[in-house]
């Protein structure tokens, strides 16, 4: 098996000998599991509903390490709509919801959660993590819950905690349960920074402007509830 058994193992000892790395196929053999998922080109195999004839050509070693095929709205920068337009159209979602209740004869009655979150699908917010120079963007509306979002963020920033020049063993961030050294916070429409998870998901979706993964020590001033939890954990 290429690249070592677990996604967690990184480091020079896992680098494959040069010969096997000259194969520049789509199964990019870079030392370390974390890299593979990120460096991979999306191929037709990732979109099982279309282009089945291409599937046979691609290397098979990376089909989902538990990851489900990305929908077109979950690929970064796809469809290629300017971020400004995405955010503006996005902000119409709540408006649309209200209108749909009025325009019943148009047959657009239902307004369930999944539709609300997934179909509008175009709301990117910036995410920055303390200690990491590069900000990312995540599509809030392509997620259905806090757990879902935390998982995406953990995958995104996986292995980014600590120095970027060394590749030590990394642990999952576990952003939501207060057990790691990082917490997930967000800036809402009023410019206040809040801990993620305090309000119902749908409310969060409409009010989040950007996210920040900050060190627990910094987050102390944010919410009494979190502080209380930590107190409890210490006892």
């Amino acid at each position, binding site marked *: 098996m290429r690249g070592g058994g677990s996604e967690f193992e990184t480091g020079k000892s896992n680098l494959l000998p040069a010969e096997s790395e000259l194969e520049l196929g789509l199964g990019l053999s870079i030392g370390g599991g974390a890299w593979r998922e990120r460096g991979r080109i*999306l191929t037709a195999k990732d979109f099982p509903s279309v282009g089945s004839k291409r599937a046979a050509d691609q290397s098979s070693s990376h089909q989902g390490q538990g990851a489900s095929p990305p929908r077109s709205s979950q690929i970064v920068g796809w469809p290629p709509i300017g*971020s400004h337009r995405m955010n503006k159209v996005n902000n119409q979602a709540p408006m649309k919801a209200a209108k749909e209740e009025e325009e019943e004869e148009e047959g657009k009655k239902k307004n369930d959660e999944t539709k609300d979150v997934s179909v509008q699908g175009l709301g990117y917010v910036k995410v920055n993590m303390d200690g990491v120079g590069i900000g990312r963007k995540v599509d809030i509306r392509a997620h259905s819950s806090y757990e879902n979002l935390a998982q995406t963020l953990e995958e995104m920033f996986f292995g980014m905690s600590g120095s970027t020049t060394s590749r030590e063993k990394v642990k999952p961030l576990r952003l939501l349960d207060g057990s790691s050294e990082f917490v997930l916070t967000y800036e809402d429409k009023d410019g206040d920074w809040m801990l993620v998870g305090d309000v119902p998901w749908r409310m969060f979706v409409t009010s989040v402007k950007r996210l920040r993964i900050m060190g627990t020590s910094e987050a102390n001033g944010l919410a009494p509830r979190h502080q209380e939890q930590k107190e409890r954990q210490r006892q």
Partner: protein
Amino acid sequence: MDLRLPSKVLEHILSFVDSNEDRNSVSLVCKSWFETERRTRKRVIVRNCYAVTPEAVARRFPEMRSLTLKGKPHFADYNLVPDGWGGYAWPWIEAMAVKCPSLEELRLKRMVVTDECLEKIAASFKDFKVLVLTSCEGFSTDGLAAIAVACSNLRELELRECIVEDLGGDWLSYFPETLTSLVSLDFSCLDSEVKLSDLERLVSRSPNLKSLKLNRAVSLDALGSLLRLAPQLVELGTGSFSDKLDQEAVSKLSQAFSEMKELKSLSGLWDVLPEYIPLLYSVCPGLTSLNLSYATVQMPNLVELLTRCSNLQKLWVMDLIEDKGLEVVASSCKELRELRVFPSGAEGLNDTNVAMTEQGLVSVSEGCPNLESVLYFCVQFTNAAMITIARNRPNLKCFRLCVMEPFAPDHKTQKPLDEGFKAIVERCKDLQRLSVSGLLTDKAFEYIGTHGKKLRMLSIAFAGDSDLMLHHLLSGCESLNKLEIRDCPFGDTALLENAAKLETMRSLWMSSCCVSFGACKLLSQKMPKLNVEVIDEHPLETRPDSSPVERIYIYRTLAGPRLDMPEFVWTIQKNPEIGVSHLAIK
């Protein structure tokens, strides 16, 4: 006999030469023409801010009054360029403040503009008149206040699709009472509410105001009073179009619209309620440009609007228009030149029983003889449709088709869309810009390379099979200027074999492809006149030469390697520790 034209005569002649392309040619004739031309050029356009230094530009064109700059690569619009990559306006503004204090106009696109930049502009250019920022970011409404308060001859202030830190609507109140020169104001991308009374006073003391684009926070009621103060507007971007107005307010608004005899361009219309669409009927016949791309107008209402727009040349709309709506466009808007259809993400339009298909575009191509520019987002497409479109409209100059499902084949035949794009490039001999999508093999790119001789800009995503794809393009497309590619499975060979081509192009962007680290290094070593930037979030020191890089951005430059590269941008100049390439040189 001295055959040289006296420079005064040449200057006079050049005062009639407006186009920069012509002026560039003039400057190549001989040294004295170069000198005369450079001393008289007023309008300078730099399409890659890293291709040349600000000092060099200021030195060459001392009489510059208008500067246009573009920063980040186009794919930055789609979040493919990490934050902090570059494109800073500051060095340019700082240099011009010293060397060209008579600068009057600044137009920036995809650049990072800070409040400090805006304050510097306000403080340095005494006769500053025009500020147009397109897709820029990094500033707040405080910076706008600085411009408003200080630029006493301001004519144009336009913020097009910028990301602004919105600290409130106060900035508008900083325009002094003495400012009466405003011709164009566009704050449509801001969120906060401005003080209506200040806006009204500003509008009423601006007799030359021709273009006003409001933000969504401006209510429908407020719109009425503004229109009454500025019936001479040629371009209008409304605010929110959804308040509940009483009958009297509605008829007053209707009256205001009917007084607008000069109106040619209409946009905004956020949240427009169907019952207010008739308010627009009186201005429709005069419109040449209509931007409904933020208006969630459904089909039946759209029809009524469009049938009245017989002079429309430019239409931007969402896919809520459906095929039926596009048929109406085809029969009513015979002057149409540009069509853009954006995805609404609305329910039902992303399923297979879509109401908007390739047929909509086919209808428009049949009905609108002047159609030359298309941007079309669609769930799927067919070769037959593209062949028909090409046959109908060989005059197309810009064809951007975005089939939203990556790798989607022709949905009727399940074949790749190669033949469709072949027809487009074969028939549309003047095609300058092309975006391809859907399932495409190397063949498609062979066709593009063979026929796309006038093609200047090409965008590709999720396509092709091998290196041949890139090879066809770089060796075949003679006019190629900008090439941007994402998620395509090719790499080094074509790039290295066609390295010389890259010096004839403005830029090449490749992300999530198979370009190896070694090839990037080799290219940098071979081509000193190019900046080869590897944009990769993971450290490269320990990477083997064969490992692929996340993104590369290659552009020709006279300025050499830039000095403002962040950690995640690697070049062999900035990062000599990464060493030379170990790839065999073929």
